[in-house]
């Protein structure tokens, strides 16, 4: 254990920020700058990519040059890039991300708002499953190291780790939906569910539709989580303070969760920080396979159609989530580990 006297803190002068607040302020500023740089880069890089954003509107029908010009004017695509950027910044200042080209006249903000709940539901379920099941399996494996359970879970984890989620999704659809007819193959809700259906009926319906995409995304990521958790736990088990806790006569459960597991939180928080953006970004492949109406499929469509406003909107949301997740992970470290706070 770390011994010695606690560090001496100087009395804070009124009006001056504490070191933690200063750190937090600096970190927030850094996050805001990172986000701004990402937005600027996204705006220009998207427009540098080859492709015409009017292609999806034209589809397979013949479309004249006059009509193309008309559409370019409508979406401001005939303006110089700098003018477009200025208009974009002006829009952001008013909370307006513009109008979708493909889903004209739908506003990007309302499109994002309509797709966000589905993505949050799927991403949130996956994160929850990852952490609850992944952590529990990883800890149990570490506790029962070398047992048959440990060996089998290790094999399963490696298999899960190596399985591409899109393939797993297709297999689950083929068997669970099409062969055994146990769960729906796609969509988020039953299209003919009555508008006056009870909340319970609605919840069951959504859960039935959620099961396969959540399982597809979770099975692979739980494997990663449990491998990390197992390794972290094993490294902690070797440390003196765990032996000391046992020597003090604490119950094994208390030793495990209160002393050992708490000290494995740092790598888990790192993983959480990496996965948190999934909450908003969704998964392009899995959303496509299950026709899940989330942000992943919206972004995928926007990329294919070069729907710049929607693409920028989703990219900004994901960038924001990445930056925010990094920030939250840093704050998480300081909460979970007092040594980080002191540094």
């Amino acid at each position: 254990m770390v011994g010695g006297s606690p560090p001496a803190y100087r009395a804070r002068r009124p009006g001056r920020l504490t070191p933690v607040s200063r750190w937090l302020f600096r970190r927030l500023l850094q996050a805001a700058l990172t986000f701004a740089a990402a937005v600027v880069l996204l705006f220009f890089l998207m427009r540098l990519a080859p492709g015409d954003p009017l292609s999806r509107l034209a589809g397979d029908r013949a479309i004249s040059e006059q009509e193309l010009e008309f559409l370019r004017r409508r979406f401001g695509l005939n303006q110089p890039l700098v003018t477009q950027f200025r208009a974009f910044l002006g829009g952001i200042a008013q909370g307006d991300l513009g109008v979708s080209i493909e889903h004209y006249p739908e506003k990007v903000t309302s499109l994002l708002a309509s797709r966000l709940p589905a993505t949050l539901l799927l991403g949130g379920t996956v994160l929850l499953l990852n952490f609850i099941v992944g952590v529990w399996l990883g800890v149990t494996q570490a506790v029962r190291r070398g047992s048959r359970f440990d060996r089998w879970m290790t094999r399963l984890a490696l298999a899960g780790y190596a399985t591409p989620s899109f393939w797993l999704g297709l297999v689950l659809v083929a068997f669970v939906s099409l062969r055994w007819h146990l769960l729906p193959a796609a969509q988020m809700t039953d299209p003919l569910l009555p508008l006056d259906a009870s909340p319970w009926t609605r919840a069951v319906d959504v859960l039935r539709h959620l099961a396969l995409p959540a399982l597809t995304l979770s099975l692979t990521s739980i494997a990663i989580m449990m491998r990390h958790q197992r390794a972290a736990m094993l490294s902690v088990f070797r440390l003196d303070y765990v032996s000391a806790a046992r020597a003090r006569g604490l119950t094994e459960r208390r030793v495990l969760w209160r002393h050992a597991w708490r000290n494995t939180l740092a790598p888990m928080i790192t993983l959480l920080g990496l996965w948190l953006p999934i909450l908003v970004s969704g998964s392009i492949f899995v959303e496509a396979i299950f026709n899940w109406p989330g942000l992943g499929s919206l972004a995928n469509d926007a990329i294919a159609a070069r729907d710049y406003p929607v693409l920028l909107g989703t990219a900004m949301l994901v960038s924001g989530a990445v930056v925010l997740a990094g920030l939250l992970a840093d704050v998480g470290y300081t909460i979970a580990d007092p040594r980080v706070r002191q540094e």
Partner: protein
Amino acid sequence: MPREVPVIARRLLVPALLLAFATVASARQRPSDHGSIVIVMGGEPSTPVPTLLGMKANDDVSELMFLRLARPGLGKSVSDEHGYEAELARSWSRRDSLTLVFELDPRARWHDGVPVTARDIVWSFERMRDSTVDPDRALLLRHITTVTAENDHRVVIRFRRAYPEQFYDATYQVQPLPAHLVDTIPPARFAGSAFVQHPIGNGPYRWSRREPGRQLELVANPGFFLGAPKLDRVVILFSRDPDARMNMLLDGSVDAYEGMSAISGPKRLEGNPAYRIESQPSFDLMYLLFNQRAYGDRSRPHPILADPDVRRALAMGINRVPVLRSTYGAYSQGADAPVTGAHWTRSLVPAGIGYDPAGARALLQRRGWIDHDGDGIRDKDGVPLNLRLNLYSGSAERGLMAPQIQEQLRQLGVGIEIQRLEGAVWFARRNKGEFDIDFSGTTMDPSPNGIVQSWTCAGRSGTNVGQYCDPAVDSLIERAMTSTRNPESNWRAAYAALQRDVPAIFLASPRALFAVHTRYRNVTIRPESFYGSIWRWSVDPRRRIARDGPGA
């Protein structure tokens, strides 16, 4: 004193009452042929309002809510005004060769109960003829000079000149909107208006709700003047992924799949008694478009493809039969001109260039294309006969056909470099002329006149991206479009002239495929729209399922 009821009447009274009761009871218990339908399609119909420029998905769904004055009859020529089916117009007549008169059906109502009047038709034509609203539509309506209302139910449409498809232009290009609801909305604000969020039409189905990204729902218009629809609810789902669409069909989530792929669809439905495949000739055309100008430089002729003999030799070197069979199975028909299987002029197309590899080799040789260096690719003046074939990577059908065509042409000594491009890039390159050969797929206008856009000199500033131009062909097409006497022979001559120039290798007109649940009856599908006759479909009362609603 009341008269006594005769004995015979008394004896008959009870059985008669029992019979009447049984009849009423059986009528009440007769299973209903009403129901619902869930359709899955490839694009999201976010704004199914006719005047908005939009995707095919919007146009398709608008068919369920907005009628036209009249609609081309199934299998009838679009230039034969007697072959049309009445919709908003009850009848029509001619005052002279330049004037059409339509009598509106007085029973026609908007979904808010207001009668459809001549004012709606006049306003809608004015809006659609405004080139600032929809330039392409305005171009199609350019021959119309005036649209006037003589009274509440009589519309008079005058034309600049006489031509066979006046009636088609007057009826097909415009789906009227309710003037009383939209005439105060400026065109620039129309798309964002409340009307577009909750459109009010005059067709068999009314707007119910839309959940962005998930589904759109329409409900039957019980007061529809042409007859109440039997399907009470039409729910439209969308998915970009064809496999996801097929999975939704196979797990029973949807009842119909519009635009099924011929490659995998029929095979996956094989032996499944729940669905049947409906196929119709379509207005779709697949062709290899030759660029007449240099790659990316329209100021210079194409160094290889400007020579019509080379184009002809390439056409002679392609054996379409195995290519189409392996891709579409039985669901396509060969094309020899820009005419599809659903066009009334399809029987007028002369036989095209047949498969003749020996003739192709000889022709290339005559034009100086010889394999001098023995590398398998012909060359001339040091220039190898290599061509870039642009291919939209999102089309599975084109992706299957391209390597087969590449191999067939390689055997002629022609090198084909396939450039698989994602949609946005393919579209941009096509419009800029950055291709030697473009693997094109297009949905044509139901009128054969549509070829003006892509196969005449005038179209070069627009959709004629191959820059093909032959004034002689232009004048033949113009004559075919405008001649009121014997248009058949004029179309035949125009197609023959096009074939001589070989501006493209016309491959096929694929049939449109639909998978429909077998519980539906009266299933008819129009070539111009899957959705146009859904309101006539009904459910077999013996085969109702839960989502069809209460059975009696």
